């Protein structure tokens, strides 16, 4: 049995509780914590719950600010955020999405964090509360660090700038719904005239963490987004990822699906940009 389940009532209280006890397990929706608790794996641990902390608000005014505990079901229904909505809708099942949260999805790890590639493609930032106040950093920077959060820190919100350019989300899975991803790809392309001025390509579910593929983005920028540039971007993505075996797909298959879905995402985004 856990020693305590402390339910924060406000964002501030949540931040204080987490800062005061860096060893505690922080639980948002609980979709990964609860099965472990059931198996007795969290015996003696203290759990800080965010379910009532008021971190589940969404505001849209140009940028979209998503509270960390916003259910994926809500994200899936967001107007004007097609990339995020598509990714959220593809995760798990309806009854899971009412419980699983956006912030949890960022922290849960591969192959589950399907929201991460779209957020990377959209240059999302996260707000983190710690003992010394809050800090705002890009998700890309946060993912590049050893861990997304420092001990005692709390993820409070995700800020998604208005998308510039055209986007696409591709997901490869064994079933249309309710199956873990083999590969997820998010792409965003903005043109300035004919040439691509800005490109984002992010890939998830392939290695331990979702990642932006800078080499692929570089291969696209300045080009017209034709076959050759896309092929170069695919090649860059292909060499950047380190696919792994799991119960759903082998590394061999993942590698092929990376190529295919990166190509599809870039073609669609480049075509629409």
């Amino acid at each position: 049995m856990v020693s305590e389940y402390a339910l924060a009532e406000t964002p501030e209280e949540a931040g204080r509780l987490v800062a005061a006890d860096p060893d505690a397990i922080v639980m948002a929706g609980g979709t990964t914590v609860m099965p472990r608790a059931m198996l007795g794996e969290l015996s003696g641990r203290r759990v800080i719950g965010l379910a009532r902390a008021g971190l589940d608000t969404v505001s849209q005014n140009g940028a979209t600010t998503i509270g960390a505990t916003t259910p994926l079901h809500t994200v899936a229904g967001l107007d004007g955020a097609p990339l995020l909505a598509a990714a959220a809708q593809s995760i798990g099942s309806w009854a899971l999405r009412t419980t699983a949260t956006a912030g949890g999805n960022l922290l849960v790890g591969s192959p589950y964090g399907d929201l991460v590639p779209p957020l990377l493609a959209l240059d999302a930032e996260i707000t983190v509360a710690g003992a010394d106040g809050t800090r705002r950093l890009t998700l890309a920077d946060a993912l590049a660090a050893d861990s997304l959060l420092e001990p005692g820190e709390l993820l409070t919100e995700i800020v998604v700038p208005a998308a510039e350019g055209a986007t696409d989300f591709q997901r490869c899975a064994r079933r249309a719904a309710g199956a873990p991803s083999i590969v997820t790809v998010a792409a965003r392309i903005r043109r300035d005239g004919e040439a691509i001025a800005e490109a984002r390509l992010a890939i998830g579910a392939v290695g331990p963490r979702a990642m932006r593929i800078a080499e692929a983005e570089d291969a696209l920028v300045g080009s017209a987004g034709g076959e050759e540039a896309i092929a170069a971007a695919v090649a860059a993505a292909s060499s950047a990822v380190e696919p792994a075996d799991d119960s759903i797909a082998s590394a061999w298959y993942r590698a092929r699906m990376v190529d295919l879905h990166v190509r599809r995402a870039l073609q669609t985004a480049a075509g629409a940009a």
Partner: protein
Amino acid sequence: MTARAVGFALNGEPVAVLAEPLTTLQSVLREQLGMTGTKAGCRQGGCGTCTVHVDGEPTLSCLVPVENVEDRAVTTIEGLGSPEEPSALQAAFHEGFATQCGFCSPGMVAIASALLERNPDPSAEEIGEALAGNVCRCTGIAPIVAAIEDAAERMR
């Protein structure tokens, strides 16, 4: 003493339970409140047999600590109809041979009733999407989809 009193509305009636920290809504329903229609097929959030409604939202009761539903309204399969007065959906399930072993049926009915409340005329695709988290090993799913379509028809 680590147990905490938690009050919520169960099928329209107020209830209060004493629960150890992080006790699942599922086990409180099944073990303390006698609502054994909510099943425990995996307790990993993967089978859908424990689906209930929390403030109307379909929810996997194995993933939710009972503390989280304090002051909320929980509806279980028992609140959706009874053998004497089955809902249209329940009637469509039993009359349409949409149950075999029956273990998935309460969860199927729970998710389907949430769907029909929001969408009285769902397509087969929409029904399929709603059922994505509910496992049935016996029927081949198609009879369940057909029963939901039949229920939608009955309710119109």
